[in-house]
């Protein structure tokens, strides 16, 4: 894949003048303590994210972003740090379409906390993003008008291959209709890398808009397969700002997710532990944000399995300190019958 990608990039960039490279990023250092099953465990980690941009030249944009996990800790302990290439792509604007080739994020978020019809199930859930959204892919975007267009994605989760069985396909149409954002998508997972418990194909539908002073949204997913039984997912949500005083507003988001089968649990990503007793899953998820002042805020996120078996609560305090340094203190409390954990974490982030 890299060889082909490299050749393609050289082909496109050849003859164009490289004007400048700009770099930005952030360095994070975190400490956490977790209590689980009578055990207590502490973790320290540091993460360096770097984004490199070449200025857009003749309609082409090259971007390279990577993450180094534990650069400082590995240096102190004489280990080799681990790298993750998040983005290494070339994007070119042709007259009628946009082509992106290489490692890129493919995320089909539409403003919900949970997204049962994302390109990669569970890759962006409740503000938590996993590395699953970064994939080696080719994306073609064809605009129809200012807020409507089609995306066609071919990705290679197991590395580049010309074998159709190893390719993942996705198509997404996005349409602006009477102030509503409407999307329709279809995804087919690769045949050879299939999860034996998760249906290989799905179609999804999302809608988001305003109803007076309230934001409303919904999603429907139909998951099917030649072997597994088909099942559906439903999502309904609202968001609203409650005015405590002028410009001090409590931001609220509340949504219900119904999964017709336990097989669809991968759509919950890191929140898979919310899976309950029965074969289907009904989940209520809420987020409450309150700005303490211009520099700090408190967010409370909760998830509740409606069969009463599981509850998850996560308060987060964020404070912007001087010199581009942010401080975060968060907690996670999960209770699920015999299961359960409590985690506290704190961290500093420096943006440059």
């Amino acid at each position, binding site marked *: 894949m890299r060889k082909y990608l490299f050749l393609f990039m050289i082909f496109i960039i050849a003859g164009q003048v490289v004007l400048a490279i700009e770099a930005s990023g952030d360095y994070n250092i975190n400490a956490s303590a977790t209590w689980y099953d009578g055990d207590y465990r502490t973790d320290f980690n540091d993460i360096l994210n770097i984004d490199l941009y070449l200025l857009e030249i003749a309609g082409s944009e090259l971007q390279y972003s990577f993450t180094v996990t534990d650069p400082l800790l590995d240096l102190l302990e004489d280990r080799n740090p681990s790298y993750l290439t998040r983005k290494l792509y070339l994007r070119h604007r042709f007259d009628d379409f*946009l082509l992106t080739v290489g490692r890129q*994020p493919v995320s089909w978020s539409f*403003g919900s906390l949970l997204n049962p019809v994302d390109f990669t199930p569970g890759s962006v859930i409740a503000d938590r993003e996993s590395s699953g959204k970064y994939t080696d892919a080719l994306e073609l975007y064809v605009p129809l008008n*200012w*807020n409507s267009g089609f995306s066609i994605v071919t990705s290679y989760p197991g590395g580049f291959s010309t074998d159709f069985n190893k390719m993942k396909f996705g198509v997404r149409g996005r349409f602006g209709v009477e102030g509503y*954002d409407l999307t329709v998508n279809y995804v087919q997972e690769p045949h050879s890398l299939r999860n034996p418990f998760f249906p290989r194909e799905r179609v999804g539908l999302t809608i988001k808009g305003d109803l007076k002073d309230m934001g409303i949204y919904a999603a429907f997913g139909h998951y099917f397969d030649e072997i597994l039984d088909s099942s559906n997912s439903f999502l309904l949500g609202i968001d609203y700002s409650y005015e405590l005083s*002028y410009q001090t*507003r409590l931001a609220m988001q509340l949504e219900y997710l119904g999964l017709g089968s336990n097989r669809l649990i991968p759509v919950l990503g890191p929140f898979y532990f919310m899976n309950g007793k029965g074969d289907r899953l009904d989940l209520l998820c809420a987020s409450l944000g309150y700005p303490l002042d*211009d520099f700090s805020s408190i967010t409370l996120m909760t998830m509740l399995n409606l069969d009463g078996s599981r509850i998850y609560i996560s308060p987060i305090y964020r404070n912007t300190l001087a010199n581009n340094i942010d401080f975060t203190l968060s907690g996670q409390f999960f209770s699920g019958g015999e299961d359960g954990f409590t985690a506290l974490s704190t961290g500093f982030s420096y943006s440059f």
Partner: protein
Amino acid sequence: MRKKLLFLLIILNLVLSAMAYAFTAEEIIRKRDDNEYIETARAEMEMIIKSGRREMVKSMLILSAKDNSLVEFTNPRDRGTRFLKRGEELWMFFPDAEDLVRISGHMLNQGMMGSDFSYQDLLESDKLTDLYHFEIIGEEEVGGRPAYVLEGIAREGKEVAYYRRKTWIDKERFVGLKEELYARSGRLLKVLTVLELEEIEGRWYPVRSVMEDKLRRDTSTEVVLKSIVFNPDIPEGVFTLENLR
């Protein structure tokens, strides 16, 4: 008797000539709009958010054409975050996941990226004369400049961020020097003070202003216009989701 009549005639003449040269509230606001209303512009701006002794700087590039605006943040913390306002719709681009999300309408009144300016304050594109009915309520000096004092009440059926605004307009340059923004209840919400003006391309324009939120103690947001080009050529397709990515 003749002396009295002559005196009255002189006074009447003075009043009539004064009335003939004075501007109506509508004319003053229209002249201000001529200076400050932007048809199309490309600007580089800095927002300095202050609370007590703490401050945070956000820098951005803005492209604006009538009802449409595109904002890209360039400071390290928010770098690559973009907003597209098209009519009443607001879209946001999150650079990490490269997500494009339509922002709900109620968010337009929230402080933009933690500042004392709401999205409406910064991206409101209508002319003031279209949104408010103004009356002259006096004349005062602001920062050594003589100014008309006008009061604007929101026009029936117009969606505005503030029901009433009291505005001080420079009598010679026809540019806003100060503004008090009120809620429908009559409560003072914010005060905008222009700290520096510059003549750019033949029009007087505020290049440094400060907005104070009167409901919060000791907070303000200073806006510094680093550069602005009026009526630049904006290529077709700039205010689209395709370009927001």
